[in-house]
């Protein structure tokens, strides 16, 4: 596997959330808005890359039967670091993620990568794998978060929880279009508020997973149909050849 493949596999082919259903707790809990989802993703990128590097560096020194507790301690150290950084630099994000920052420790994705990849490969590969997988995880979270926030409020907001690059929250919503015609309506009043609440999390994720499964099923059906057609064609060709041979033999006999 080349380094590029190793990096890219986390996005679609081995996406942790959409394909393997790992790390579902944050995928449901912190995706009420686009920003909290992105913030969670950034934290996971740091923790997963860091823990993969350290696990890979120490892989020859960690004894076989205490490996799980050792990995957990390494991960927990990075999580504690990240928790302090978030509290210092993005306090709104720290408040809104709350208990889910310490819970990164028990995210099955991170322990799974340490166990299945970093403990068997060298440092560079492990770092690339961790970064790629975490970016895939972030991508999935951002997809879910944007869909949920858009359905709930009719737009996306930047700057509320991640106070970077802007002085005050910037919002991009359908209001821009609607206000061309009528100033008295705001789209927020017509949002499906359910999607920012717990039931909406389950239902939104169900629709996204069903879309991926639909594409998979359709691809399998198309492949099956193509294979069937190929077999029919081969059969026809064989029959034609047999016929030609029989005709030829008859001609020779005559």
């Amino acid at each position: 596997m080349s380094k590029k493949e190793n990096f890219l596999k986390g996005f679609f082919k081995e996406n942790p959330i959409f394909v393997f259903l790992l790390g579902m707790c944050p995928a449901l809990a912190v995706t009420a808005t686009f920003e909290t989802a992105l913030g969670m993703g950034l934290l996971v990128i740091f923790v997963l890359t860091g823990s993969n590097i350290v696990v890979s560096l120490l892989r020859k020194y960690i004894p076989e039967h205490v490996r799980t507790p050792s990995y957990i301690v390494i991960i927990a150290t990075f999580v504690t670091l990240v928790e302090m950084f978030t509290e210092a630099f993005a306090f709104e994000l720290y408040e809104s993620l709350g208990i889910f920052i310490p819970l990164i420790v028990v995210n099955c994705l991170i322990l799974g990568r340490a166990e299945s990849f970093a403990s068997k490969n060298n440092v560079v590969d492990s770092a690339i794998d961790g970064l790629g997988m975490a970016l895939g995880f972030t991508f999935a979270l951002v997809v879910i978060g944007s869909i949920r926030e858009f359905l709930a409020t009719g737009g996306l907001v930047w700057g509320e929880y991640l106070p970077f690059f802007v002085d005050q929250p910037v919002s991009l919503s359908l209001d821009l279009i609607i206000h061309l015609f009528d100033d008295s309506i705001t789209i927020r009043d017509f949002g499906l508020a359910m999607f920012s609440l717990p039931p909406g999390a389950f239902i939104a994720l169900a629709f996204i997973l069903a879309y991926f499964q639909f594409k998979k099923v359709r691809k399998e059906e198309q492949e099956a149909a193509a294979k069937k057609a190929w077999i029919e064609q081969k059969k026809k060709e064989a029959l034609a050849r047999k016929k030609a041979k029989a005709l030829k033999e008859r001609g020779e006999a005559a």
Partner: protein
Amino acid sequence: MSFTVFATAIISAMLINNVILMQFLGICPFLGVSKKSSSALGMSAAVLFVMVIASAVTYTLYDLVLYQFNIEYISTIAFILVIASLVQFVEMVIKRYSTSLYKSLGIYLPLITTNCAILGVSEGNIANIWGATVPFGEGLFIAVSTAIGTGLGFGLVIFAFSSIRERLEAANVPKAWRGVPISLIVAGIMSMAFFGLVGVI
């Protein structure tokens, strides 16, 4: 330490702030171990058992050690280590003293270390209950009651969900929705039902 406190903590943790449907903790076992209702019951019994012990131990640890020495910031590392070793310890004790219990709970115990509901409840107890104002005994009592309620709520939801899932196996679901997507829709509808209980207390 009154019955009212106990009942309030149990009802609010079990029904109103349900651990799976409202707080999204423990989704992995919720989706992974809910294909058969018997395994769902085994898992929820193991979770209840470990959760009660773990929250008592972590609460005590936080109050008597971490807070006294001003090292609250390592609580995550300390708690996960305590939980991991506790799970090992409980497994060994059960194996030694009760073979039948080990047979029914044994295979679920190793999975519990990475179950975020356990760590989530321990951390939540510290965030919501612990404070220098609440005396240690009372706080510990509320923490244990909350853990019992949370474990019962986990069991209730995972058992109901697994029963529905057993029926879904026989249903004629469109191909794209088979498996996890339709289960998530079921969970969403259950979550809506639980949402009706918000504000009871």
